[in-house]
Structures are given as structure tokens and as C-alpha cells.
């Protein structure tokens, strides 16, 4: 081995040691460890505080803890709704796969599992991200059954961004007859979220959509708490560090009597006959509180929490009877029930006195118009001699043509100096009785205002290419028909109930309401709905005459089938002609009345879209009053 390294021998160094370039290794060690040391110093010493803060953010998660929603009770304290946790499938868009293809595969898998179309999920996610949702979550399916929930729980481990969660849900136990009143809760629409996020709502928090659930959202919701938790890298809870308990929502006691509501619903449903829809209002003439507000047909508000909603919802939308609308808040020609308003107006204007009588010996009254042409107007029977009370009792049309239009050829004045003025005056009273405007009922719904026509109104709505110029003119018949609740005037059953209540209570047009008290979670009453009203521009003496006519109608008139042995009932029937979609003239059946006659406690309005008031609506109203006096009467 003595030859090794000869060529490289540096004679100055000790004998025959190998003389490789070992020094370069020392340099490498120093350089490489210096690089590491400098980088370490930069990370730990220069930027350490920033990293420490990020480490904190890694582990602490502040979550909103949803409050438990307030419950809803009927006037007797019977619960109408339960809070029940439901399984929901939730997506956290931030954790979804980056790759659009992978994402869509995940959506397809969810479609198979949950039945929610992949495209719909994709739209929901994209829309939410377009709305600026960054860290939040999206609910894609609610009310999963147990099996599906378990399958999702297992699958979620392999589906990034998908989780199964328990969410406070709502079960309505009052029966479908209460659906319209209670409404339902549901996920926020994008528009709602834009407003609600400023009020601290989570993106996937449910809100009241219609009914009292929506109207009293602020009271029922409560305020969310928050929990600061320490989580590990999987997002699993390690430790709860701080918890601000949510404040439960306030509960609502309704003035609705669930038993009465059920009774009325069953009664209407079983007596529909040819009628397709029906409605009834039972309320207090003293406070304006509603005891029952029934619409037939109804729907099950629990379906809005169920999966497969779309199909059922579409069926409801396609139903020509429009089950989602409350019939008591939908307008129809009021027919003869309107005569209580015409009577009040004529008495107040003085063109009729209680003693004004007329001998109606023919079913035809021939009006001589201002143009000299003779117009025949018909009554439904030969009444003989009637005064105002008798005219209300027997629902004489000719008498009320006279009371509204007057009879020009006999020199009998109408409500105004001419037919247009008469219509305007009658319209003024109709509005005073609450027609032509929403009642302000405390239910979020599409309450209709109905129509109180006037010459000005007719000119406005009958303009346009669909109408001839003469369609815009106001005729004698317009005023006369309005006087008997026909023609263009329409009103909702609730409006007629309010008008009836105003007659019954001596001139107070009340604001109707279904919420009686708001109760805090600890049972303390937070507020009670106080009655509020407008004063009718009608003298109490005049209203007494109208009441007398209504009483007479039940005792020995058109509404006699509403009579009860136990309690004196007063009321007015209505059989309102209307022309259906096929151009056939048909009748709405109405009854609106109150009891007891001498000190009214309850107002009942019953409406069927098809039928005769005296025979169809009146006896049903009688049975409702009977039930009320026996079971509900406070």
C-alpha cells in the first residue's frame, strides 16, 4: 500500500497520511447548519409571535349555539308545536374537494344517498359562495330518517366537507287545521339571509316562513349563545373552554281554541257538499281576539320539514283550490251580508229611517234611468210590506237598492245626490267597516284587502286595451248592486267578521289578533295583546237597529236555521252571485252573526264558495255558536 497517495504527497505533512480534501466537509457542516439556524431564528424568534397566534386559531373554534325556539300554545295552554331534533346533512364548502370533477362526484354520491339532485346541491353551494359565504355551513337535506342518517354518518368520513348534524327541528302537533295559523319554519332564502345575517343569524339557521312562526319570529327565536372549544385536527371536540348559554325564545299563547278550531274544521269539511273551499272565523267582539280561524282545504305544515318536499309542495301549488291560501283571508263577493253596512250607511246619512217602509209586492223594480231607459231590478221573493228591520231580516234586495240608490222616479233619495255620489258615500262606510284594506291580523300571510269599488276605481282598473270606453263608466247598477254586496265589491270572511263585530259591540272596529300573550322562558308574561280599534262613524242607535234586524233574521227570517234554543243568535245571511271561470252564474254561501243578541260574546262568520247562505252557512254557524257557548266561552 506504500504507493497509495504518492502523487499527492505534500512532503510538508506528516509521513504518509492520506491527503483528501476533508476540509470541505467542515465547511459544508458549518454552511448547512448556518442555513438551518438562520431559518429557525427567522421562524421562531422573528415571526414566532405570529405563528403562536395562528396555532391558537388552529385549536380554538367559536361556534354559535342555537337557542331553543319558543313554543306555541292555544288559549287553554295546550301545546301546538314541539321542538324535536332532526338529522340534517350539512356541507362546509371550504372543506369540499378543490377539483370540480371530484366535487361533482361527491354531489352525485349525496344524490344517491339523500335523494337531493346533484345539480341542486351544486347550485346551492355556488350560490352560497357567490353570496360570500366563506367559513359557514349549508344545510342540504333536513329530517333525514335514522337509516339514512347512519349511512351518511359512515360515509361522511370519506366525504370531505360533508357532515351529519343534529338541528333543532319543529313538529306541529295541533293538526293540519292549524297549519295556516301557525305557519312553519324553513331555511333562509338568499334574500332573507342578506338581511338576517346582520341580526346574528347563522346561514343555515331556520326562520319562520309564514303564519305566526314568521310574524313572531323575533319573539320565538331567542338569542344564540356561543361556545369556544378546543378542537383537534379532525375538528373533534377536545375541550369546551367557554360557553355563553343561548337565551331561549319566548313562547306564544294564542287566543285560538284548538278544540274549537278542530270542531269547526271537521264541521266544515263534513258539510262541504258541492263547495270546494270554505272558511270560518270565530272571534270576540270585545277584544278582537280570534277563537278559530279555519280554512278548508288545508295542508300539513310538517311536510315543510320533510325530505321530498318539492313533490308535495308542487302538488299543493297545482291544486286549483289553492290549499296554501287561507280562505278566511281571501276575498269573495259578500252578497247580502254587506247589507248591514248599507243599512248603517243609510241610517247615518238619513235617507232611510228605521220606520221607512216599502211594500214589495213584486220581485221586479223598474228603475227609470237618467237617460229615460227602464232598468228592471229583481228581488228574490215578494216580501210584502217591510221596514228596515224586516228588510234586513228577509234580506230584501229591492229595499236596499232603494237604501243605496234611491228610486229616482218616485223622488226617493239615495245615499248621495246622484248615483256616483251614492257609491262614494257607500264606499266610505264600507271602508269604515274595514273593507278594502287588510285587517292587520298578526299572521304573516297573503291577506287580501278585497275591493271597495268607486267611479274613480272603475275608471282606473277598466282602462287599457282589454276594455271598451263605456266599460269605464259608472252606471246606476254599479251603485245598486254594491248596495246588496254584489257587483265589484269583495270582502274576506275575516273582514266581514270584523264588520259584524263592530255592529255587535256598538261601533268599535277592532284589530283582530291571534296572539294573546307572550311568555318568557321562565314563565313570566312579557306582554299581552291589548285590544285596539277605530271608532265607526255610525251612531250606536243606528247600529242597534241593524242588530235588531239581524236578530229578526234569525228569529223569523232568512237566517232562521242559525237559531238556537239555548242562546239568542243574531245574524245575516248572504247568497252572493258570482260568475265562475266557465261563465256560469253560481252562489257563495255566507252567514255572519253574533251571540248572545243582548250582550254579544262571540262573532261567527261562515263562508262556502258554493251554496245558499240561509240553508248552508246559517245552520253551521248555529252549531259553532252552540259549541262556543258550551265549551269555549271564557
Amino acid at each position, binding site marked *: *500500500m*506504500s504507493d*497509495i*497517495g504518492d*502523487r*499527492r504527497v505534500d512532503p510538508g505533512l506528516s*509521513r*504518509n*497520511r*492520506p491527503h*483528501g*480534501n*476533508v476540509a*470541505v*466537509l*467542515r465547511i*459544508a*457542516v458549518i454552511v*448547512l*447548519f448556518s*442555513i*438551518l*439556524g438562520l*431559518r*429557525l*431564528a427567522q*421562524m*421562531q*424568534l422573528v*415571526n*414566532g*409571535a*405570529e*405563528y*403562536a397566534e*395562528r*396555532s*391558537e386559531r*388552529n*385549536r380554538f373554534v367559536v361556534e354559535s349555539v342555537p337557542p331553543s325556539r319558543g313554543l306555541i300554545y292555544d288559549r287553554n295552554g295546550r301545546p301546538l308545536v314541539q321542538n324535536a331534533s332532526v338529522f340534517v346533512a350539512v356541507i362546509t364548502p*371550504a*372543506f369540499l374537494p*378543490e377539483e370540480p370533477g371530484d366535487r361533482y362526484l361527491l354531489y352525485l354520491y349525496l344524490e344517491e344517498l339523500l335523494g337531493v339532485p346533484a345539480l341542486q346541491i351544486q347550485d346551492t353551494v355556488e350560490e352560497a359562495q357567490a353570496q360570500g359565504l366563506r367559513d359557514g355551513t349549508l344545510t342540504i337535506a333536513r329530517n333525514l330518517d335514522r337509516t339514512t342518517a347512519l349511512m351518511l354518518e359512515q360515509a361522511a368520513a370519506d366525504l*370531505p366537507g360533508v357532515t351529519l348534524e343534529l338541528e333543532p327541528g319543529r313538529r306541529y302537533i295541533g293538526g293540519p287545521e292549524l297549519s295556516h295559523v301557525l305557519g312553519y319554519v324553513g331555511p333562509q332564502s338568499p334574500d332573507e339571509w342578506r338581511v338576517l345575517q346582520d341580526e346574528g343569524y347563522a346561514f343555515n339557521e331556520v326562520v319562520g316562513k309564514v303564519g305566526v312562526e314568521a310574524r313572531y319570529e323575533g319573539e320565538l327565536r331567542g338569542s344564540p349563545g356561543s361556545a369556544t372549544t*378546543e*378542537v*383537534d*385536527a*379532525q375538528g373533534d371536540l*377536545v375541550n369546551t373552554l367557554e360557553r355563553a348559554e343561548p337565551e331561549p325564545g319566548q313562547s306564544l299563547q294564542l287566543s285560538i281554541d284548538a278544540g274549537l278550531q278542530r270542531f269547526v274544521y271537521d264541521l266544515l269539511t263534513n258539510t262541504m257538499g258541492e263547495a270546494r273551499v270554505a272558511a270560518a272565523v270565530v272571534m270576540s267582539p270585545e277584544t278582537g281576539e280570534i277563537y278559530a280561524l279555519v280554512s278548508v282545504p288545508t295542508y300539513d305544515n310538517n311536510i315543510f320539514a320533510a325530505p321530498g318536499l318539492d313533490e308535495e309542495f308542487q302538488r299543493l301549488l297545482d291544486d286549483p283550490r289553492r290549499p296554501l291560501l287561507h280562505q278566511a283571508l281571501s276575498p269573495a263577493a259578500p252578497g247580502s251580508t254587506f247589507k248591514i253596512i248599507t243599512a248603517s250607511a243609510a241610517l247615518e246619512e238619513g235617507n232611510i229611517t228605521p220606520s221607512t217602509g216599502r211594500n214589495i209586492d213584486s220581485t221586479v223594480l223598474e228603475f227609470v234611468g237618467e237617460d229615460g231607459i227602464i232598468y228592471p231590478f229583481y228581488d228574490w221573493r215578494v216580501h210584502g210590506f217591510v221596514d228596515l228591520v224586516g228588510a234586513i231580516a228577509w234580506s230584501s234586495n229591492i229595499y236596499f237598492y232603494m237604501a243605496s240608490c234611491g228610486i229616482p222616479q218616485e223622488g226617493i233619495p239615495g245615499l248621495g245626490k246622484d248615483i256616483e255620489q251614492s257609491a262614494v258615500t257607500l264606499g266610505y262606510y264600507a271602508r269604515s267597516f274595514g273593507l278594502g284594506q287588510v285587517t292587520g291580523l298578526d299572521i304573516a300571510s297573503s291577506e287580501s284587502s278585497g275591493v271597495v269599488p268607486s267611479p274613480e276605481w272603475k275608471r282606473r282598473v277598466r282602462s287599457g286595451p282589454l276594455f271598451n270606453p263605456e266599460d269605464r263608466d259608472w252606471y246606476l247598477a254599479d251603485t245598486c248592486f254594491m248596495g246588496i254586496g254584489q257587483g265589484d265589491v269583495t270582502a274576506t270572511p275575516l273582514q266581514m267578521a270584523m264588520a259584524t263585530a263592530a255592529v255587535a259591540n256598538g261601533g268599535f272596529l277592532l284589530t283582530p289578533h291571534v296572539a294573546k300573550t307572550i311568555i318568557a322562558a321562565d314563565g313570566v308574561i312579557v306582554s299581552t295583546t291589548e285590544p285596539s280599534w277605530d271608532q265607526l262613524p255610525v251612531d250606536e242607535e243606528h247600529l242597534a237597529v241593524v242588530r235588531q234586524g239581524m236578530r229578526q233574521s234569525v228569529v223569523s227570517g232568512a237566517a232562521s236555521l242559525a237559531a238556537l234554543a239555548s242562546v239568542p243568535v243574531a245574524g245575516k245571511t248572504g247568497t252572493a252571485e258570482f260568475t265562475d271561470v266557465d261563465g256560469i252564474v253560481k252562489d257563495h254561501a255566507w252567514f255572519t252573526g253574533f251571540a248572545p243578541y243582548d250582550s254579544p260574546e262571540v262573532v261567527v262568520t261562515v263562508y262556502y264558495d258554493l251554496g245558499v247562505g240561509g240553508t248552508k252557512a246559517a245552520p253551521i254557524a248555529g252549531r259553532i255558536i252552540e259549541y262556543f257557548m258550551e265549551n269555549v266561552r271564557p
Partner: protein
Amino acid sequence: MTVFRGQRGLREWDRFDGLMAFAALALVVYGLALIYSGSLRSYDGPAVSLSNPVAKQAFFAVVSIGAMVAVSRLDYHHFLHYAWWLYGASIVALFVLIPIGQTEFGSTRWFELGPFQVQPSEFAKIATVLALARFLSDNGGDARDLRIFGMSLAIVAPVGLLIFIQPDLGTSVIFAAIWLGMIVVAGVQRSHLLILGAVFVAVLPFIWTFTVADYQIERIAILLDAEEDPLDAGYNPIQSQIAVGSGQFFGKGLTNGEQTQLDFLKVKTKDFIFSVLGEELGFVGAMGLFALFILLLTRGIRAAQIAGDIPGQLLASGIVITILMQAFINIAVNLSIFPVTGLPLPFVSQGGSSLLTLFVALGLVQSIVMRHRAYRQI
């Protein structure tokens, strides 16, 4: 059997480098503490059990230290004598790995041998160092000749390529460094290196396009901007940065690091064990680790310096380079200045193959130190 002069006496034990052995042992103990902390949440079995990662590592350490002592008793020329056989066996093992090896995280790096995982690339490092030392010393320990330069490259290239296709970018880089370091020690001509460097730069785009796996490109891209994809490929670099950075000067205390204990940090007893150290023991703890590594490497360089003959010098140099580069790349990954690659931190990371190989290598260095006078030509 060839008889070497080094076997003549046992006075060599006096020259056993205790300081170097101490540094290695201290690193292992350091590692045991970090493995304990890193496995605290995932392991809840009995303390004394081979399934306990700490006990398992300690067991491997004992076996490995035994191997070091055994190897240091032998003359390193035995190993040089069989260098070509060992080298050939490594290549065969790496070949066989292609069809039957175990694949994890998209990379095939080890065999299952009973309860143990054997990583051929660990042994291939030592075999290649031996082969290079043998080849260069057979040729007078001089790499100035272009033929020697080319041949030495031809020795490293097949092993490096086989590992590159596993794929294991980090280990391939280590092979390149071993070759580069050893021929520099052997006095390579600067012009050869420059020409090779130029050729490499010229073909780099082709390598990039045809041979670098997508995941490698992604890891390199992530290195440049980890925040771009924080939940996927960027996850580990971000979490390790947060862990190390949040440790600050004194660290959060052993077993108190939230990044480690709450599982934000992955492979924290192996590739990312340095992040555990950075988080829990801070800058101070890292400097301690650096000191131990520098001590160990300095003693290794001393061995190369005082080696009795050229093969000894080259062998010691190769081993120093192996340990240095592996430590550097591993820590650089933890500090996000090198793409993520599955390299253990020498002596510290959990893993038997790595530990055994390293101590065998140290045994070789000890053998060189113990016999340097015997081979010094007086």
C-alpha cells in the same frame, strides 16, 4: 480470508471515539423523548411492549448500539473487501422492491419482514459509500482523471435512479450528495464538475417533464406558496411551520405543544419529528440538537482526517456526508425550505432500519479511528 494488519492488537479500544458515540446516543435519547410526546395521543397501550413506539425505538437502539460495537471490532477493510457484493445486493433489493414492496402515500419504499419494515434504500446508502470508497481508493484515491470521474458517477447513478423511481426524491438527492462529496474529497477537477453541472441544467427540463412525478412538482410548488392549497398538499408544510414558529424561544414544554398533541402535525414521530422539537422545546432545544449533530459530524470529520489510509478516509467522509445531508434535508423540510420528502432525521426519528444502518455506519467510522495508527505508514 485476507489478513489485515489492523487485527494485530486490541489496543485500538483505547482509541474508540467515546465523544462521537456519546453524541449519537444523546441524539437517540433526544429522539425517544420526542417520540414519546409525538405518540402520546395515538398510543395508549402498556409502557413496556414492542407496540409502544418508545419501547420499540429503545429496543432498536440497543440492538443498533450492539451492532456498532460489533462492527467497530471488525477491520473496516472486511467491508471494503465485500463492497461490490453489498452494492450488488442493494441493487437487487431495490429492483425486487418494484413489484413486491409496500406502497404508502404513493411510494414503494420497504419490505414487510415479519413485524419489521425493511427499507433497502437505507442499506443501499452504506453499500454505495463502501463501493465508492473501494473504487476510488483502488484508483489511487484520485478523481482528477475523467475516466475515474465518469466511472464513479456510473456507480452512483443506478442506485440513485432506482430510488428516484420509488419515488423518493430526498434519498436520491442524498446519493447525489454522497457522490459529489466523495469525489470532492478525492480531489475532483473543478472543470469536470462545471461541465457536468452545465449538462444537468441543460437536461433538467426533460427530467422535469418526463420523470418527475406530479406529486413532486406539487410539493415543490407548495414550497413556494404553501397557503395556496392549505387543506391538501399544503397542509403539512403549513402545520409544521406553525408548530416550529409557535415554539418561539423556549418552546411550549415537552408534551405541551398543541400542534403536536391535537394532531395538526402529521407523521410527527418520523418525518416531522423536528417540528415537535421546534414546538415543544423551542429555539433552545433546536440549538441543542444542532450542537449534538455538529459534535457528531465534527468527530466524523476528525476520523476522516486521521484515517490511516485512503479507503478509510473516503469511507469516513462518505458516512459524514450521508448523516449531514439527511439531517439537513429533513430539518429543511420541517422549516419549509425543501419540498416535502419522506426522510427520517438521523438517530432521532422513529424507525429501526434507519437506526441500525446509522449505527453500523458509526461502527465503521469507529473501526477507522481505532485502526488509524495501524494503517498509518510509518
